[in-house]
């Protein structure tokens, strides 16, 4: 298929449809409302469901209900809205239902601002809602990757029977880039008849299915949590994605950065190369599971003297980077999160300060 120029938000909407997701529930919030506007128009064209819920709280449960009966379903929101959906995320994870949540991050805490931010790293990666659960978290760095990750998210949500999050930011949602929609979507055989409340008639079964998260018996609850944990262990084995940039050379500094921020870092790296300074970048493309070993290896390369996590936050991913480096190198941090994305020049200044 030919390339088209699309806004990230619209491309994410189209990607869902191309992935066979014909069910979308959402509540408007800047900077991701274009997804809802796009799908309000597109879903009826493809015979799909579009519904604007009364709140993000309600939308979270519309997603839960739809996912519980085994249908592909997605919602999109931005930071404050994701806070409200976090309750449902906890329930959906516990009840083991596949669903796709997109967070086009804006500045926080509180109402914060509407400009790009990466302040929801902890929320996305460490839980957000209550209890022991994780989301599989993708971090695209542009429109094309947002499309591919959105499409794959449905497959993985079904593979792991759990919620998957696309963690983008306002820049990725708002910018236009050329995008190509992959034709061949990988799909795994569905086992949803074993658990989804799709109606006994449809399954031609006498056995009813239950979608629940209440396990009053401690043994049962522990078993459910162990089942969730087993999935996270499997994700760590099979789903880690990352990109190395300028990492085949003898770099003195390793930057760890993701999403929009990593693109600015790449420009800085190119500029420093012209000055004869080699800097490497490791860009996690999944934030959970996190590329722990890849970061350790890249950080402990002999030429590498310092590691720095650069984020549009006040220092969140840096805690995971420190954990991965296991004290073998000093780990620094640089970040801004008012909405002004740090410039390549600023990053060069910071990196040079480490040399």
């Amino acid at each position: 298929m030919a390339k088209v120029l699309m806004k990230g938000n619209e491309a994410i909407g189209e990607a869902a449809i191309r992935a066979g997701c014909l069910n979308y529930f959402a509540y408007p919030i800047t900077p991701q409302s274009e997804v809802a506007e796009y799908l309000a128009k597109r879903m009826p064209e493809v015979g799909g469901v579009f519904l604007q819920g009364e709140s993000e709280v309600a939308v979270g449960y519309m997603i839960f209900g739809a996912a519980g009966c085994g249908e592909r379903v997605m919602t999109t929101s931005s930071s404050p809205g994701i806070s409200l959906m976090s309750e449902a995320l906890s329930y959906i994870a516990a009840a083991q239902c596949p669903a796709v949540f997109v967070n086009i991050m804006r500045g926080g805490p509180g109402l914060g601002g509407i400009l790009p931010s990466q302040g929801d790293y902890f929320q996305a990666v460490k839980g957000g809602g209550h209890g022991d659960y994780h989301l599989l978290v993708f971090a695209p760095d542009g429109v094309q990757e947002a499309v591919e990750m959105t499409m794959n998210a449905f497959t993985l949500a079904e593979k792991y029977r759990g919620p998957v999050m696309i963690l983008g930011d306002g820049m990725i949602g708002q910018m236009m880039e050329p995008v190509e929609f992959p034709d061949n979507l990988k799909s795994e055989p569905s086992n949803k008849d074993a658990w989804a409340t799709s109606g006994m008639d449809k399954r031609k079964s006498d056995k009813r299915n239950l979608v629940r998260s209440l396990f009053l018996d401690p043994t049962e609850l522990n078993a459910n949590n162990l089942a969730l944990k087993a999935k996270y262990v499997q994700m760590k084995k099979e789903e880690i994605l990352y990109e190395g940039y300028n990492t085949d050379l003898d770099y003195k500094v390793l930057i760890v950065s993701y999403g929009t921020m990593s693109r600015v870092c790449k420009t800085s790296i190119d500029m420093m190369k012209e000055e004869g300074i080699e800097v490497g970048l490791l860009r996690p493309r999944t934030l959970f599971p996190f590329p722990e070993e890849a970061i350790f290896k890249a950080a402990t390369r002999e030429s590498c003297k310092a590691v720095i996590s650069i984020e549009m936050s006040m220092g969140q991913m840096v805690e995971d980077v420190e954990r991965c480096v296991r004290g073998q190198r000093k780990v620094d941090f640089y970040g801004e999160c008012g909405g002004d994305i740090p410039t390549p020049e600023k990053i060069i200044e910071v990196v040079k300060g480490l040399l």
Partner: protein
Amino acid sequence: MGKTFSKPEAMSSNMTHYCPGCTHGIVHRLVAEAIDELGIRGRTVGIAPVGCAVLCYNYFDFDFQEAAHGRAPAMATGIKRVRPDLIVFTYQGDGDLASIGMGEIIHAANRGEKFTTIFINNAIYGMTGGQMAPTTMPGQRATTAPTGRDTELTGMPIRMANLLKELVTPGYITRQAVLNPKQINKAKKAIKKAFEYQVANKCFSFVEVISTCPTNWGLTPLDALKWAEDTLLPYYELGDYKIPE
């Protein structure tokens, strides 16, 4: 002589965990009978609330989902929108529906979602141990209103059927009770009618059922029935509040 009485197919054979004199069991049975009579068990999905009926799926035998506190109508919306062929109902108590879930029920009703809500109004929080509900009567004692509900501080009890009736969107809104056999028969008819409206894809349907909670009211089952008759029914008037054209 053949078998003259048996449990509905839509019910499981599990013993309920409800307290003696509680009317949940009666309403469960009415729902199950209606589902059997309409032959819809194989395409029904129930939604359990948070409250005493959180485990109600143990007493039914068809697909069930379990919602978070108050969110059953949003969940039902999600199911019904993506699978309009399924028959979906929520079973909610007064803390769940009229307190924490007020937003969800109003908007689902106003969108005219084609599902059914069975709303158990017993004027108290049951499972958490007798705290004040939005439906608790003036002066009625609760663990969080030890001297009785003070309407100066907490307002008057919310009449859900009356409130939902005011929405312009068509719907079937009725209030029934299960305090004596006559009422139970009428409640059965109303519940069946509510499902019939859904089967016909007609409208949102809502059956409020005035029930008892002897344990948390501190009354014997018989006294509880009498108290409900004397105190609840004059305030919560029974009857159809809205019928779709």
